[in-house]
């Protein structure tokens, strides 16, 4: 890992240097030359600049995080809601249902969901509350099993782990949905957590869970499904929040650093937007002309 990163950084430095050189002799907006594109698309310098800036920011943060720097990340209300829901469930002595989405392991959301699953498993392990994890993809089964088992081991109650509660239902979307609905109706879990990549089944799951009176918390980066979760769940982790929650829990430098780097970029954006809007309002259009991708 180290040499690669170092190499990347050297490349970055060199990239930045050539950028400065190019900028020094930059001409504004060359006309689109089709026949001879030349050596470098000067008109795309604005894009390159932002790419390099962003890459610099978040690699720096990853470095710092790996070096042991503690970054501040605000409390994420959705995570507190998860803890509350699991707490209520254990008090009532009822099961917790955790659906890690219906996508395969190659979807990053499934991986992030495992981080939260680990957290939830640790909470329930202490109280010996059953944790039911229905799964839609065969490849996710070993991953979920490992995650839950490890969590039980970490809190010192490996015997409480029950492999039968990691349930592979079906790879077909609606067959899986019917299966989860069945679990909700039969076993009446007191907390339903839907965290991962969901599609059209989101509203069916949330509806059944609502009818059984469970506390429901959802989280997904599939923006098109958020409306259906928002209206039927008690709390919803929306888009980036879902990733941030996982990064927060994982304490992994790679994830924390990326989150922090993105935040720094957002500060830059907020400033850029405010300055840009003021300029535009007073009729200065230079910045927006330069920003235009070509």
């Amino acid at each position: 890992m180290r040499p690669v990163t170092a190499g990347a950084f050297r490349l970055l430095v060199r990239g930045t240097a050539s950028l400065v050189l190019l900028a020094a002799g930059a001409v504004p907006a060359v006309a689109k030359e089709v026949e001879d594109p030349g050596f470098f698309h000067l008109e795309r310098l604005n894009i390159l600049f932002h790419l390099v800036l962003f890459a610099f920011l978040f690699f720096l943060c990853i470095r710092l995080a790996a070096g042991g720097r503690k970054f501040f990340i605000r409390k994420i209300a959705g995570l507190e809601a998860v803890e509350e829901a699991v707490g209520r469930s254990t008090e009532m002595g009822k099961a917790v249902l955790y659906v890690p989405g219906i996508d395969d392991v190659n979807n990053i959301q499934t991986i992030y969901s495992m981080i939260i699953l680990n957290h939830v498993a640790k909470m329930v392990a202490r109280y010996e509350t059953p944790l039911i994890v229905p799964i839609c993809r065969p490849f996710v089964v070993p991953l979920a099993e490992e995650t839950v088992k490890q969590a039980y081991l970490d809190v010192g109650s490996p015997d409480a782990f029950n492999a039968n509660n990691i349930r592979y239902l079906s790879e077909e979307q609606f067959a899986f949905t019917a299966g989860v609905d069945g679990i909700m109706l039969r076993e009446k879990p007191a907390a339903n957590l839907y965290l991962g990549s969901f599609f059209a089944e989101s509203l069916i799951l949330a509806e059944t869970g609502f009818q059984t009176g469970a506390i429901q918390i959802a989280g997904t980066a599939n923006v098109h499904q958020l409306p259906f979760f928002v209206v039927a769940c008690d709390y919803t982790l929306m888009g980036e929040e879902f990733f941030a929650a996982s990064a927060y829990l994982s304490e992994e430098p790679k994830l924390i650093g990326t989150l922090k780097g993105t935040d720094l970029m957002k500060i830059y954006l907020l400033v850029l937007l405010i300055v840009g809007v003021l300029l535009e309002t007073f009729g200065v259009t230079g910045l927006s002309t330069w920003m235009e991708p070509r």
Partner: protein
Amino acid sequence: MRREVPLLITMIVGWFMVLEFFFPQAEKWSSELQNWAIIMTALASVLGVANVARINMLKVSRRDRDWRYSIVLLAGMAFMVLLGTVFPMVRSLFHIDSSWAIGGGEFMGVTYGPYRLSGVAAGTVFNQFYDFMFVPMQATMFALLAFFIASAAYRSFRIRSVEAGLLAIAAVVIMIGRVPLGREIWHGLPEISDWIMSVPNLAAKRAILIGAALGAIATGLKVIMGIERNFLGGD
């Protein structure tokens, strides 16, 4: 060999894709890489189909739960592959030019065919099965969602907070304002729904787009710099 080579391939290919955007000279190389990626993506999809076949054959041989359904699945698959892949393959390998066809008769007042047996274009048996099996089934699966959305609207769309209230109001204005009926109710409604779409909706969607773009760029950069290796799996 097991991790280093694939990582190196990923990085080289990834960098070419990025650099060609800025440096026109890189296009020649990235072009051939894209052609390879096209083939690789198709083969990966073929692999997915092969996997479905494998899993279901296993299910049948082990007499797993629902194995009888798997036979239906395999039969449907074999039939389509025979018409769409095996026949064309045989014809091109042995240079058979005659067009094999069936049908061409009348039954119950409807003329059927003749349908060509090999190939996928209109007028083949393959295409008929696509039109009258694949199309209705897939379309119906999506049509079911209209009913689920109705039931969810009634049984779980609860306006329990200001936020849910805003969502509900926007949804209602859009649902009514977008269809001709909206204008009959109040002629300002379509304009209001247009405004919601292109101002507040756009503001939030734009913020989400920008956030998602930053996330995607970060992930991409981590991959092509070799920091992100999850895709290589364990071992």
